[in-house]
């Protein structure tokens, strides 16, 4: 590689989470600060050491509870003195916020960047079931931007948009619901060992097939569970990570590409997604190969997204994702590619992308407790998003 990727100058020195629950009814800013302080404490730093701040999505329109705190609120509440900050939803998926932090420390704009993602969708959406985007808009609400092309056709949820990709994959490659079910079953099995997971009771294939349909081929268990909680990281420059509390997690490479149209319905290949471009991009920035990866923490806002990441990251060929996960042995904690070892968003809760990076760090440090994979992992991929935007990170422990 001619020039060393800038992200290699970054490492993750602190990880933290707030209390996590289905409906905590706690102030979302308080939850956010709780997660942030945990990450700073974990790094062995003081709040005054933080000179950068990055979050996804900041102020944003979305489902109720989609954004627990903006950068401004955390900046001011903690009276941070920042050399660099950034926030926004138009980036390489949820992990775009962490990737930008890596580049910021690489560029010398900051030494220690606090990154957070905070949600309170569980409490905000209450017991009334999951609503569509715009459901709370009232009769005068009009859809604009990209949403103008889906909301009028009673398609106000990513469940519908992603179900259509899954259906195309089923049609083209013979992928089955029995195969896809392994994403949900594997996640639930792992969640049983994660004290912070939302759903921990065992789930069988019969349970999966007995669940009500949401948008075919997705049943309820193919859709993640809204929750409350905040996840935070400290991203540090490697030169400033030497004497911190724990060995830093190295950032080997990031994948940010989006070469197809940035659209749910105009993307050129409806059997793949934005995952295709970001996944391929990752491997252009490192000498490591998919066969070097010990664990995969890959977004499962909907089960098919994980299958899409498995193909996009080159763990199997396009179209072979169904066969790859069939039976579930390969992706189990003791399999050749342990997957979503905390339970994923399907069972551990919709912490929206950051939960996967958190778990990758926990496993690389060997701090997984009961759910720690038996073979100590050295290399992990954390991947988040899908559909029309996503990003991924390749990590290693020293």
């Amino acid at each position: 590689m001619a020039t060393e990727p800038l992200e290699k100058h970054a490492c993750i020195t602190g990880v933290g989470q707030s209390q996590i629950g289905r409906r905590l009814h706690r102030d979302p800013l308080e939850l956010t600060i709780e997660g942030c302080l945990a990450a700073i404490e974990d790094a062995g730093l003081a709040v005054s050491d933080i000179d950068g701040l990055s979050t996804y999505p900041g102020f944003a329109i979305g489902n109720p509870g989609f954004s627990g705190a903006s950068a401004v609120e955390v900046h001011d509440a903690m009276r941070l003195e920042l050399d660099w900050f950034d926030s926004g939803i138009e980036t390489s998926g949820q992990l775009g916020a962490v990737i930008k932090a890596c580049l910021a420390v690489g560029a010398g704009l900051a030494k220690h960047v606090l990154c957070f993602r905070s949600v309170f969708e569980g409490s905000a959406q209450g017991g009334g079931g999951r609503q569509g985007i715009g459901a709370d808009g009232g009769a005068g609400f009009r859809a604009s931007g990209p949403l103008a092309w889906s909301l009028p056709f009673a398609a106000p949820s990513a469940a519908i948009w992603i179900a259509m990709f899954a259906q195309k994959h089923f049609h083209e490659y013979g992928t089955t619901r029995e195969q896809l079910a392994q994403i949900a079953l594997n996640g639930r099995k792992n969640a049983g060992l994660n004290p912070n997971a939302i759903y921990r009771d065992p789930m069988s294939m019969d349970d999966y097939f007995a669940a009500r349909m949401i948008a075919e081929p997705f049943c309820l268990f193919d859709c993640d569970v809204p929750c409350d909680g905040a996840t935070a990281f400290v991203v540090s420059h490697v030169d400033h990570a030497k004497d911190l509390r724990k060995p830093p997690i190295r950032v080997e490479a990031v994948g940010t590409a989006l070469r197809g149209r940035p659209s749910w319905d105009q993307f050129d290949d409806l059997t793949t997604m934005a995952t295709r471009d970001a996944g391929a991009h990752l491997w252009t920035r490192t000498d490591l190969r998919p066969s070097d990866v010990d664990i995969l923490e890959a977004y499962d806002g909907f089960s098919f997204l994980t299958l899409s990441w498995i193909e996009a990251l080159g763990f199997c060929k396009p179209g072979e994702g169904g066969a790859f996960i069939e039976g579930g042995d390969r992706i189990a904690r003791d399999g050749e590619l342990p997957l979503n070892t905390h339970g994923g968003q399907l069972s551990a809760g919709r912490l929206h992308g950051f939960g996967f990076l958190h778990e990758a760090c926990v496993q690389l440090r060997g701090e997984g407790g009961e759910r720690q994979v038996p073979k100590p992992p050295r290399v992990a991929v954390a991947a988040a998003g899908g559909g029309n935007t996503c990003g991924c990170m390749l990590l290693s422990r020293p």
Partner: protein
Amino acid sequence: MSGDVASPPFRILPRITDLNRPFWTGGEHGELRFLRCRDCGTRLHPPVPVCHVDHSRNVHPEAVSGRATVATFTINHQMWMPGPELPYVVAIVEIEEDPTIRLTTNIVGCEPGDVYIGMPVEVVFERQPDGDGAVWLPLFRPRREAEVG
């Protein structure tokens, strides 16, 4: 190919702009309209004021046949908000004149279970009152046999 649905379901309507008005109101004349570059012939969707091939600003609405093919679909069972009667079909269709132009839409006029990938369909417009005017949503129904092929 036009035809008002007697009592259309509640739908979130699009915010109408000068650029997208031809698309959302073409149904009044039974026409499915897309912007097209007069210089190179490229069709543009969603509507943008510049052609992505030759960057010409000479783009104008033009009707297509209204024939399309189901590229993929889902049968939706979840009540997200008031809307069409459950279950209903959300599909992505590719228009006959240029399969790279796609629409997210609903397939109507048949049982949800009869919809399949590759199904030939044709546009049917649903009129929705919008303030003092109206918009016409392009939905699609199975193509009549005489028109298939």
